[in-house]
């Protein structure tokens, strides 16, 4: 596709990520490092999954292989999320200690949210980078690509939209999961794996002829639900006063 088209697809997939990055993360070096660690760990989990399934890649003939593949992939990544939670507890501890030593304020609730956001954004960005952007950038040129089972949208548009959906899902479900673990709420803790599983299996609809429209809609719907749930949880947490001075008056420059 043309350069403008390619840029458009990239922005579709990465728009919210870029916005989140430049408003929340860019001013805080620690969050940038968290982001990089998160992306790296997603990549490592991807390498592990690919290592196991490389030999059994499903083709046209054995489509059912996708099911155990996706199941194992989601389990692997949810295990990584659980690991992140434990890492996060340690990190929080260390940061608080350092803050005391440097006579700086301890971690505020907003700070903890931001760290969770950085972790989640890392996962989401990793997904988009490896599944969408990596295939996009070499494809600048005079042609485009369609898949036979989906004649309505080009391959790039499809991957951009799905990438956008998954980015939002990963980002906000990490916040929900961290919140759930912190507060000990089982339902919240199960939301992230549950939504991940649901969204992943929803993409199986794309295998059917003409099903890609429904697949994309399902993914974007999941993204909407995830962000709504996250919003609701945070809204409830801040209490009756929607804009308490303590948490929102700290400027993000």
């Amino acid at each position, binding site marked *: 596709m043309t350069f403008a088209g390619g840029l458009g697809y990239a922005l579709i997939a990465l728009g919210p990520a870029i916005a989140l990055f430049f408003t929340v993360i860019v001013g805080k070096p620690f969050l940038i490092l968290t982001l990089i660690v998160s992306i790296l760990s997603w990549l490592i989990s*991807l390498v592990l999954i690919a290592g196991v399934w490389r030999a059994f890649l*499903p083709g046209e003939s054995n489509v059912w292989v996708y099911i155990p593949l996706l199941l194992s992939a989601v389990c692997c990544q949810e295990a990584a999320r659980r690991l992140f939670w434990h890492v996060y507890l340690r990190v929080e501890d260390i940061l608080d200690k350092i*803050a005391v030593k440097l006579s700086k304020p301890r971690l505020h609730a907003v700070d903890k949210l931001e*760290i969770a956001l950085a972790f989640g954004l890392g996962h989401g960005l990793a997904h988009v980078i490896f*599944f969408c952007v990596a295939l996009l950038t070499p494809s600048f040129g005079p042609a485009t690509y369609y898949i036979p*089972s989906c004649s309505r949208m080009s391959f790039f548009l499809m*991957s951009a939209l799905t990438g956008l959906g998954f980015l939002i899902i990963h980002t906000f479900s990490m916040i929900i999961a961290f919140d759930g673990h912190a507060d000990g709420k089982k339902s919240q803790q199960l939301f992230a794996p549950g939504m991940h599983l649901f969204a992943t299996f929803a993409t199986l609809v794309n295998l059917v002829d003409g099903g890609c429209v429904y697949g994309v809609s399902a993914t974007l719907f999941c993204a909407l639900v995830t962000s709504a749930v996250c919003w609701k949880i945070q809204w409830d947490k801040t209490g009756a006063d929607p804009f308490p001075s303590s948490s929102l008056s700290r400027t993000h420059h």
Partner: protein
Amino acid sequence: MTEGNILESLGSEIVGIVTPVSICMLLVVLLVQSLTPHGSDVPVASIAMLVYDEQPTDSFTEKLGGAMLNALVFVIIVTVVTFLLVVLFYFRCTKFLRAYMGFSAFMVLAYMGGGVAVLLIQNYSIPIDAVSFLVMLYNFATVGVLAVFFSKMPIFVTQGYLVLIGVLVAYWFTMLPEWTTWVLLMAMALYDVVAVLLPGGPLNMLVELAIERDEDIPALIYEARPNARHIAPLPNSPHPVSISSSASDSAAQATQIPPRWRRRVVTAPPPGNASSAAAAATQLPSNVVNEPVNNQDTVRPIGISALRIESQPQPPGQAQALAPPHSTVVMDGLETSSRTAGRSEIINIEALLEDVAGNGESGVLSAAIKLGLGDFIFYSVLVGRAAMYDMTTVYACYLAIVAGLGSTLVLLTVWRRALPALPISITLGVIFYLLTRFLVDPFIVNLSTHYVYF
């Protein structure tokens, strides 16, 4: 800045060094993608190709054997030139070295920069005439030489030129054939370990000489912008000593330009806090001279590989709170046509640890983290080579290299001695390249083209 969020201050030095490394890699990837997306058709003459000229039609064993021979020759030449550098430094031939450095810097910017510029002009059909091009190139090269020689330039200009030099040299290295490049990278990583960690290694010797003499080792070092909060005036600044060891091979690659050493002043924590700070901070690596100041051992953490800290005796009459000025000398990749001495490695995290160790009030000047330009170059060569396969490998290798860089910093705080920065990053980079190329890429393409995601 008194009250600040911990998230805003912690890690700023690391980010300050990861950013220029990323920019360098990005520029090299862009150059590779636009000019030579499948490798260079014309083999570039270089020392690394003395023994074996790789052809795509050679067999596997031929390529591997030939590449290893090439790498061996390269490493030997690098070692020899590094020892030459040590000898020259030992005999204080500074004027000669300085002059040669300037000449080499100019050659890199003018010759390699000009070559890349010509390729870009051809590729994008940029309308420019030869005379204007020559004038601009000459100006560009001259400003570059001035920027890395004199410290009066705005730091952004110096940083920019250092990154550009790294980009140019790295791009030229990516023109080597594939097998030679990969084996060369691994060989240089190994050489790095040996040269820095073994007592007889040239880099080790160079650093110790510099420490003994209390002199600066000039080298091409990228210096991240310091977050100065309070700088005490320096009683005496050393004159820059330039060392250059450049092989005379004109067809070859980079040279080094010794930057001016900026001395950074770090104020010690007030005596009362010293013990806690010292406890929190890390101790100096063993190869660093640590003179006790203020009647107590204010330990100064030091950076990696061939990093050296000189503590000057405190001038009389100065306040107790002022620490002796430190100059953290980072030895960098003196690159010559071969890769020589003190490359890469050095990362100074003194300031980082200083910062962490806490020192609330009397102003800690966090000295900048310095990373040798050789590191920039080799990281970018790896990523540039990965770009010749696919962008997936580029992202994977980028993450691996940044992870290696970060873990080298962490190891530094644990081991507290000079550490080379190349090995971990290059090894991780190569591993991730192979894994991504053979495992992840087919997997992703399969899933993507069926629109199945997770």
